[in-house]
């Protein structure tokens, strides 16, 4: 549809005549206005695709803290191994290895190796995670943060519900490390670095 079929009346303004047909198709029907509020989805807009982003300090700090956590795990493992006989001598601790026909001293050695194996595995995992975080892997960053959140939550409930004291000792150091790891890796720059290669539809396009 157009106005070409009927010639406009002499002197009549081309637009704004009451009752006339809608304006030409190229004019926007409604002026483009910005919303007066910012929708919540705006907060969740994807980060910029930027593969050349330099590594931020927060990512380096996070990886170093994860390595420190591994080192702390190593120290704790060593301390357990050194004090193993004393720990077992505690009458509250009872070693129960069902279904084995090992002697008492063999059982103690096996239990020690199991404990050290678990500790060693977590140390190894932390070292691998630290390497991947430094390279900017997002899954490693999220995995480290999930572990930290679980560990912090456990410590918090023990402190809040059970009234366990957190004094200046290993418990405080490991909690502080967990929280600092979480702070560093959840920062905006570390997140942007880990997601620098994500190609998402650009909301502005």
């Amino acid at each position, binding site marked *: 549809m157009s106005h070409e079929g009927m010639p406009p009346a002499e002197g009549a303004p081309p637009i704004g005549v009451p009752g006339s047909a809608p304006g030409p198709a190229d004019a926007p029907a409604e002026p483009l206005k910005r919303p007066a509020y910012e929708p919540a989805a705006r907060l*969740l807009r994807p980060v910029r695709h930027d593969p050349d982003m330099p590594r931020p300090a927060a990512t380096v700090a996070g990886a170093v803290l994860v390595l420190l956590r591994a080192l702390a795990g190593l120290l704790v493992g060593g301390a357990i191994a050194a004090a193993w006989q004393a720990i077992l001598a505690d009458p509250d601790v009872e070693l129960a290895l069902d279904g084995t026909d090992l002697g008492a001293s063999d059982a103690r050695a096996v239990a020690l190796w199991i404990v050290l194996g678990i500790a060693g595995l977590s140390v190894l995992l932390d070292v691998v995670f630290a390497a991947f975080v430094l390279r900017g892997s997002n899954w490693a960053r999220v995995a480290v943060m999930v572990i930290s959140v679980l560990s912090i939550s456990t410590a918090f409930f023990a402190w809040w519900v059970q009234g366990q004291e957190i004094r200046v000792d290993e418990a405080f150091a490991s909690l502080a490390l967990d929280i600092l790891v979480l702070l560093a890796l959840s920062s905006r720059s570390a*997140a942007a670095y880990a997601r620098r290669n994500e190609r998402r539809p650009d909301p502005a396009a």
Partner: protein
Amino acid sequence: MASRRTYSIGVAVDWFFFVFAGLAAIWLAYLSLTETFHVGWWGIPFFLAFWGLLAYLVLPRLHRILTTIYVPDYFIGRTRTSDGLLGDPVNLAFLGTGEQIEAALAAAGWTRADPVTLGSSWRIITSTITRRSYDEAPVSPLFLFGRQQDFAYQQEVAGNPAQRHHVRFWRCPDDWLLPGGRRVEWLAAGTFDTRVGLSLFTLQVTHKIDADTDVERDHIVSTVREADRRVAVDVIADFATGYHARNGGGDSIRTDGDLPIVDVRAVDGGAA
């Protein structure tokens, strides 16, 4: 694809960790504060650790979360700090290329600021303590249009790095108009650092600025004009209604609200 998702679930997960880490950091700060009273003389380093935790990790994160909620994310004539707080006021506009602006400032006796790195941060700390001159000292990042400044220039005062004139520049997005409809190519925020102090909002060590930002604005315009007579200046009077406010460090600001538009398009840029 009918409707493309404009939000990212991964970013939502990041927000969860961001807020959780903020809450956990508050708890850690509380624990280290209460420990301060248990460990005798060791309480002094513990108290310093508490301050460091509070000033550089806990309060910035809290401000980031809260300002995301309450500070509008469009142009309101103010820059924002990296924590999202309102920073120095935008008090200058420029027409011309980045090279032309840099050439005009260099001719007027201004020095380009170094980028913030570990090395330059260490040098500004040592030069402030020993009162040595560091005329390319970096300036802290401020944000406009969601971006850090493109470049910053400064002028030292009598060899004292605690005091300096400085001005940061942002390139406006294409087709962006000032409120009121004028087209400018660059916006700038100039303030005068008077001394080193603690920020009111984050307790971080920072430069305190002179409250009368109009003096610094007029100083920038007059030095650039005196150095090169081809520079033209047009003023939008009462662009920002004269306001009294605070910047990101909690320093008060007074201004008459005029916005000079400095036209450096006649300057030879880049010396090429």
